[in-house]
């Protein structure tokens, strides 16, 4: 029986040969979202240049709902837009879409910086902890973050804190090898807290710049597993480590459950930011509006593919533009994707 070779095809296919630039330009962000915007643009195209009427509002509502923005947020957003439209006497649907884009951008206006050191705990080894439900892409995200920080010249140690899922450690090992990071792991089924603690201690001993700690995916309604996660965070924050970022990884295909996820993980682990993954598909991740508004959690990073470079900073302007297709020609290369089937009909 044959064994598996490390799959390099993914990186080449999705990201091109690896020059590990830390940041990719916004155009890439937009092109990653190009597939998302098409459907929405199609929908909005029918209302452009016309006087807003009932059908206009219905199209806007369906556009937002169809992007997973959610019922409550959609209603609130359109309510606000409606009152602006009344106040400013907006009579053109195009203008309405622009106003909507402005308001959505404004809603996302916030500090999204990532912390790489603990200012109040000098000498402590900074830890980034990655949490989230099963299958959102935590391990892949760590691999990409590791590649990015390594490329910036940081010495990275990875902690294989997912001791539950079969072969999770091997998966992370592959990523660690790719970017030259050290991986600290325990045996299968080991206590994740102790694995993370070992990694932090090892990193401190080696004088590493940052520890990237993986955790097992868990559904947020599993209380014992959430307690376990809270413990992992506490232990990671103990000497010689200091947790400087707890990043909640959310899959862009997630619907309204994303809010429930954010709420539960924030409660258990004091989440400092969100990584929105798989935004290169046709999903739009609109649930982040509710997460930002209701919980004040900021999306800091965005995953756009399986390659080592497919991780970029979240850019609200590009995100909203891409989501609404408000400015259709803004530096977006023609998509090579096939015409997406339209959600709905």
């Amino acid at each position, binding site marked *: 029986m044959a*064994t*598996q070779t490390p799959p390099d095809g993914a990186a080449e296919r999705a990201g091109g040969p690896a020059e590990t630039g830390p940041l990719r330009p916004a155009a890439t962000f937009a092109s990653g979202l190009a597939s998302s915007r098409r459907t929405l643009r199609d929908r909005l195209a029918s209302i452009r240049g016309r006087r807003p009427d009932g059908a206009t509002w219905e199209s806007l509502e369906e556009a937002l709902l169809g992007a997973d923005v959610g019922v409550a947020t959609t209603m609130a957003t359109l309510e606000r837009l409606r009152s602006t439209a009344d106040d400013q006497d907006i009579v053109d649907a195009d203008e309405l879409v622009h106003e909507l884009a402005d308001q959505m951008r404004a809603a996302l206006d916030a500090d999204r910086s990532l912390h790489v050191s603990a200012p109040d705990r000098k000498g402590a080894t900074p830890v980034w902890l990655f949490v989230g439900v099963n299958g959102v892409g935590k391990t892949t995200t760590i691999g990409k973050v590791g590649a990015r920080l390594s490329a910036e010249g940081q010495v990275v140690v990875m902690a294989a804190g997912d001791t539950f899922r079969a072969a999770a450690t091997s998966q992370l090992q592959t990523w660690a090898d790719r970017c030259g990071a050290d991986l600290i792991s325990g045996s299968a089924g080991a206590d994740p807290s102790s694995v993370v603690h070992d990694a932090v201690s090892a990193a401190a001993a080696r004088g590493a710049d940052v520890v990237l700690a993986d955790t097992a995916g868990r559904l947020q309604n599993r209380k014992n597993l959430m307690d376990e996660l809270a413990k992992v965070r506490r232990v990671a924050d103990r000497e010689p480590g200091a947790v400087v970022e707890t990043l909640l990884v959310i899959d862009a295909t997630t619907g309204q459950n994303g809010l429930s996820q954010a709420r539960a993980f924030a409660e258990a682990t004091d989440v400092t930011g969100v990584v929105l993954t798989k935004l290169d598909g046709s*999903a739009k991740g609109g649930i982040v509006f509710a997460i930002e508004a209701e919980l004040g959690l900021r999306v800091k990073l965005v995953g756009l593919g399986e390659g080592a470079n497919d991780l970029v900073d979240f850019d609200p302007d590009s995100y909203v533009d891409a989501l609404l297709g408000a400015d259709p020609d803004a530096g977006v290369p023609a998509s090579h994707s096939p015409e997406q089937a*339209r959600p709905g009909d």
Partner: protein
Amino acid sequence: MFDTLTDRLSGTLRGLRGRGRMRPADVDEALAEIRLALLEADVNVGVVRRFVDRVRERSIGGEVTASLTPGQQVTKIVNDELVEILGGSPLDFQFAPRPPTVVMLAGLQGSGKTTAAAKLAQWCKSQGRNPLLVGADLQRPAAVEQLRTLARGIDVEVWSEPGDPVACAAGGLAHARQTGRDVLIVDTAGRLAIDVELMGEVARISDAVEPHYTLLIVDSMVGQDAVATAEAFHATLEVDGIILTKLDGDARGGAALSVAEVVGRPVAFASVGEKVDDFEQFHPDRMASRILGMGDVMTLIEKAEAVYEQEEAEAAAQRLAEGTFTLDDFVDQLRQLRKMGNLQSIVQMMPGISDQVRNADIDDDRITTAEAIVLSMTPAERVSPEIIDASRRARIAAGSGTSSAQVGNLLKQFTQMRKMMGGMMGLGSKRRPASRKAGRKRGKGPTRPAGSSRTGGGRTSSKGGPSSGKLGTKPDGGGIDWEALDLKLPGR
């Protein structure tokens, strides 16, 4: 949010009840709430639109059933539609006459394919089959290793070879034939529906192994995009059925409806936990109620109706009305209740039950205890429990392996219950013809002693304690506390 939703929906439908016929305005009002419920459950916005249109047509257009109130009728239509879409033509999973039966799994990254592959293999084993797993996900680091680890736990062989996934899958098929495996389960790499290259690859894998069943893996937390994904996979692979994963989470799982609707194929299996055994054939009726946030009221009612034989019910109702309800009847009711199934699963079907209660550990032992106590009584004692004195009580306790206090407790509850029910039935008989009593009894009798006061209001009812149930509304003498009754479901 869900509780409010449940309230809102049942509130609307309750408002509809009691009116003679369905007016378009009533229907629209209810449908507006149902639309929001579906959207909040992540059903695709286009699917919701079509769904609501269909229900409106059916509701207003007629189909007036004499026995149902308008509210019940709308609920029933909504429920029927949902069940129809989710599993109207259930996937009849047949093992091929000429083995191996080939099953291919496909889906987005992170939807749970590898885990589902192992779970499906375990399910096949439980059906007496001898499956082979093929690890054709050569893309995600360590995916094959993950499959091997899972497979080791269930003692199933894994075939994989590096390089080309198409060749790997074909090799697996050849290996299965050589080694006499009767089921072949092919795990494939996760891929985005818009990735032309990878969709082509999965099509070639499909061509190579010619699967009997192509199953699309859908994460129950997925939102609006489920439709686009399902359409693309269906166009490429001709999906036969759906496996819904991570259903043990708290997502409402509207994606199941979206996908089943656009693909026109049923959900075949559901993955309901992290263990390999947490995998079952899908129940469309339960899912319909989950999506609506109503609990599985319909199933509960139908179960109750099916189990509780009409004659028994009528006889018991008669005795209740006459105040001659005996301990035998009482035990009978408890047995009927148990026949409906595991108490935990019944509670899970009830609407408006808090997670705390839903997840509470409920055992059936307390019914067994009550049964034992009554069975240790003489026939005379069962008919006239008032003759039971301290010495009889001690004898009964010894016979049933309980304590005198427990026996006393049960008798106290029974007396209260008989008093209350007798009073109620008396009240009822003033308003209703006698024949209706049996009907009421039939629907509610079995569930009532289980403390299921929450279902009391009928099909659409949810939430609300005793006050929403007719039986609990104004007990004679007032104030019987169902919650306090020791015979109520433990865990309340």
